[in-house]
């Protein structure tokens, strides 16, 4: 049993090794690092300011309160931050394939997925994560729900699942680079930006849009449903419980697409 887990352990170890190296080289540019962090925080604060300004004049949006919307924002920030900090390399996949640099990765005795995601580190993600967690903390503080141990555990699972969905969407769309031989393809960015919609309660959208972000590209499970859970809104809590499954499903699909892409790359040449 331990032997079968070994490649997994090695993979994780090497991932952190590679990531660590990237971080070291970035930290060498200290000024840049600080500015990146600062800019990420400013962007998120702008969003917070926006909601705050609106809620000065209206009590709720479609029945959703200020702190609930803040929590949705926070979840988008946190998950985006995790993506930037730990999986930034995914954005480079299109370029890596197009330039032939991906060959390098195939020649090494390490999983190419790990090498790709560790290829870059986006420190702005740190700013996003910190701001996000601050906001979600505030949101939780303003939730009238009773926090039992089970509930807290579920919260952790939900945040982890939300991040997983985000990362999986990123990986799956980036893998389009195996077929679309354009180094800066629109596909990953297109899907990523859909997250903008998930900053607000999905009830404001038309049915079509709702179907899009619940079923097709499940951003609703990143922010909306977990928020419902945090605020104890039973009507929406059932879908919230589906979130971990959605996460696993998305991850599975993303890795499958990546594997298929790799197979295509290996047979069709470049």
């Amino acid at each position, binding site marked *: 049993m331990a032997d079968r887990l070994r490649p997994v352990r090695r993979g994780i170890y090497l991932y952190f090794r590679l990531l660590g190296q990237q971080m070291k080289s970035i930290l060498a540019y200290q000024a840049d690092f600080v500015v990146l962090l600062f800019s990420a925080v400013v962007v998120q604060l702008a969003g917070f300011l926006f909601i705050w300004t609106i809620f000065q004049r209206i009590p709720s949006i479609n029945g959703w309160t200020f702190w609930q919307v803040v929590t949705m924002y926070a979840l988008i920030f946190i998950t985006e931050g995790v993506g930037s900090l730990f999986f930034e390399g995914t954005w480079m996949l299109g370029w890596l394939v197009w330039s032939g640099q991906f060959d390098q990765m195939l020649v090494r*005795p390490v999983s190419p997925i790990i090498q790709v995601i560790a290829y870059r580190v986006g420190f702005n993600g740190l700013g996003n994560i910190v701001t996000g967690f601050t906001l979600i903390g505030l949101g939780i503080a303003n939730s009238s729900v009773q926090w039992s141990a089970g509930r807290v555990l579920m919260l952790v699972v939900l945040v982890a699942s939300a991040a997983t969905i985000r990362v999986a969407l990123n990986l799956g769309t980036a893998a389009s680079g195996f077929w679309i031989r354009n180094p800066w393809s629109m596909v990953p960015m297109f899907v990523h930006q859909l997250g903008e919609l998930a900053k607000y309660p999905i009830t404001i959208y038309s049915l079509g849009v709702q179907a899009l972000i619940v079923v097709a590209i499940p951003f609703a499970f990143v922010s909306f449903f977990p928020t419902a859970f945090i605020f104890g809104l039973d009507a929406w809590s059932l879908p919230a419980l589906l979130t971990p499954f959605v996460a696993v499903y998305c991850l599975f699909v993303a890795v499958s697409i990546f594997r298929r892409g790799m197979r295509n790359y290996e047979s069709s040449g470049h």
Partner: protein
Amino acid sequence: MPLIEAKGLTKQFRQAVKEPGLVGSLKHFVTRKYTDKLAVDHIDLSIEAGESVAYLGPNGAGKSTTIKMLTGILVPTSGSLIVDGLVPHEKRVQNAKNIGVVFGQRTTLWWDIPVIESFNLARDMYEIPVKRYKANLAEFTELLGLGEFMNVPAGKVSLGQRMRADLCMALLHDPKMLYLDEPTIGLDIAVKDSIRKFIRRQADERGTTVMLTTHDLGDIEDICNRIVIIDKGKIIHDGGLAALKDNYARDRVIHFQLARPPESIETIRAGLPTSELTTDGLRLSVRFDRFEHQAGEIAAVVMRHVEVIDFRIDEPEVEDLIRKVYLGQLSLTSAGEAALAPAGA
């Protein structure tokens, strides 16, 4: 039991036939047309452990495609390929542990971090035992002169330094096979020389099997004992360098410098019926097959008819030979006579 054994190895690519521009793209979307390109055509290749093989061919001949299949990056269309008992593309990770690769145009080092950190990462990736890693690193650092830029990021070192670091990177884990793709391209003579010596030494000392693709014939002469030439997907020569020269580079040219222009070329020609004479003022050149005549013979005949001040002999140039193959002027049929295509064909 050969280390690398390929039988009937084939790679066929499907290329979409698309007219340029937007109209072409739309048309292609509707009716897809493909051409099949046979990059590697049922080649048989057998390499024993410890050999150093030069893999040559004009651009587009199928060299990189073959190497990609050997390294497990590309899946063959048909045929069998076994490298050290493994099928490369099926057991990619295991195969990767056995091989070291140096791409002349791209580096295997991480761009933004110091060279030594790339080496440390290699140690972790290939699970090199610490003692072995330290020993190898020390040896390569000394032989390749890496000490002076060990702490510089790969993106900031010169091309020559980068190549040396890439070589070190490729050999740290004691691979059984070393693949080199244009390793000395763009380097100055001194660096080329030291790199060739280094590779030769590693091959001799560790028994590493080397496979080298290059356009630089100096690489071949210094490193390899066997040449495989591929053209249009097929292997057209597979044998030793000496045999290649003996079989196909049989021409020699003696250039004579004369005291006076020769009175009659015809008389000289009469004495050397199977040779080719050209004359230009005070110069006379004789091209002859060295298996038919010896240089001394030729010189003797010439000097009987004219006064010779000086002369020099051109050795058979593998470079010329290969160039002729690339230009299609020479088709190497299997270990037989080289057939010369008429000039201008």
